[in-house]
């Protein structure tokens, strides 16, 4: 087991391993997403209060969950890279930033589209929405800082520090609906209680959440493979790979 993890941390092995599991992950992600869409758009009943606009939830909530999850992954792998100087951890941190930013963007946009028919406004400066917007800026800051520094390893170290500082925003986002009076509703699933949601709505929500998680895994592996190729372009194994792809 340890041997496997030790090998996996070597960029060359990781590149091949990721390439082998990517098609399977992609297929699983697609199946889950199709099942979630079918359940969410056709099987789940209409909400008695919001009508059918609540169906935006099936992308809004998974996107918002992933915006937090990816940030934590990015910060933790950045920290691992800082402390143990593991190249692969740095690569995962750097590769996560654009994906997390796009999930945050998606959560904000679908939230605005959902807010218009539900609250009567696209946007309010309440705690949940504002802290999620700050999360988007944190991601963009990480991406900008990483591309501003020429040396890849220095860049990864600088962005890891920035990502770690930004972690303080994560609990603020999660608890914002409890700490402040927000227009945004409270948690219905992620609380220490029975989820207050109909099972026919919960199932597609969880399917979509799982599909989004797998989607992140697929894209982060694809991006990490590119990062590895770029960093290791002067090594023998990359040369061999380029000659016989």
């Amino acid at each position, binding site marked *: 087991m340890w041997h496997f993890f030790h090998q996996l941390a070597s960029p060359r092995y990781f590149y091949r391993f990721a390439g082998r599991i990517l098609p399977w992950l992609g297929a699983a992600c697609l199946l889950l997403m199709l099942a979630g869409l079918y359940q969410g758009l056709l099987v789940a009943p209409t909400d008695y209060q919001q009508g059918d606009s609540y169906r935006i939830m099936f992308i*809004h909530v998974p996107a918002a969950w992933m915006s937090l999850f990816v940030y934590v992954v990015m910060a933790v792998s950045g920290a691992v890279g800082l402390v143990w100087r593991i190249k692969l951890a740095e690569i995962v941190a750097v590769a996560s930033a654009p994906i997390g930013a796009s999930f945050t963007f998606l959560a904000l946009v679908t939230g605005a589209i959902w807010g218009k028919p539900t609250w009567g406004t696209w946007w309010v400066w309440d705690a949940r929405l504002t802290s999620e917007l700050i999360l988007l800026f944190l991601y963009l800051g990480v991406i900008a800082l990483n591309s501003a520094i020429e040396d890849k390893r220095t860049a990864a170290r600088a962005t890891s520090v920035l990502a770690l500082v930004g972690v303080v925003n994560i609990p603020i986002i999660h608890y914002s609906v409890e700490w402040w009076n927000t227009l945004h509703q409270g948690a219905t699933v992620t609380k220490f209680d029975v989820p207050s949601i109909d099972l026919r709505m919960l199932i597609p929500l969880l399917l979509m959440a799982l599909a989004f998680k797998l989607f992140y895994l697929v894209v982060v592996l694809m991006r990490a493979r590119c990062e590895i190729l770029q960093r290791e372009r002067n090594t023998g194994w990359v040369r061999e790979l380029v000659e016989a792809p």
Partner: protein
Amino acid sequence: MSWHEFIDMGGRGAYVWSAYGVALVVLVVNLLAPALWRRRLLRELARRLKRSRNPQ
């Protein structure tokens, strides 16, 4: 449920489908970016390798 009802989403079709549309665009861009990056990288590395093999 008829096709028309499905598209209409109880009068909220414009909101629901635009949200799903944005999601589709975000997912596709996320997949395309590393795929194109990889193609560009491999082509660039192949060119570099060729140049280093036969320096005129």
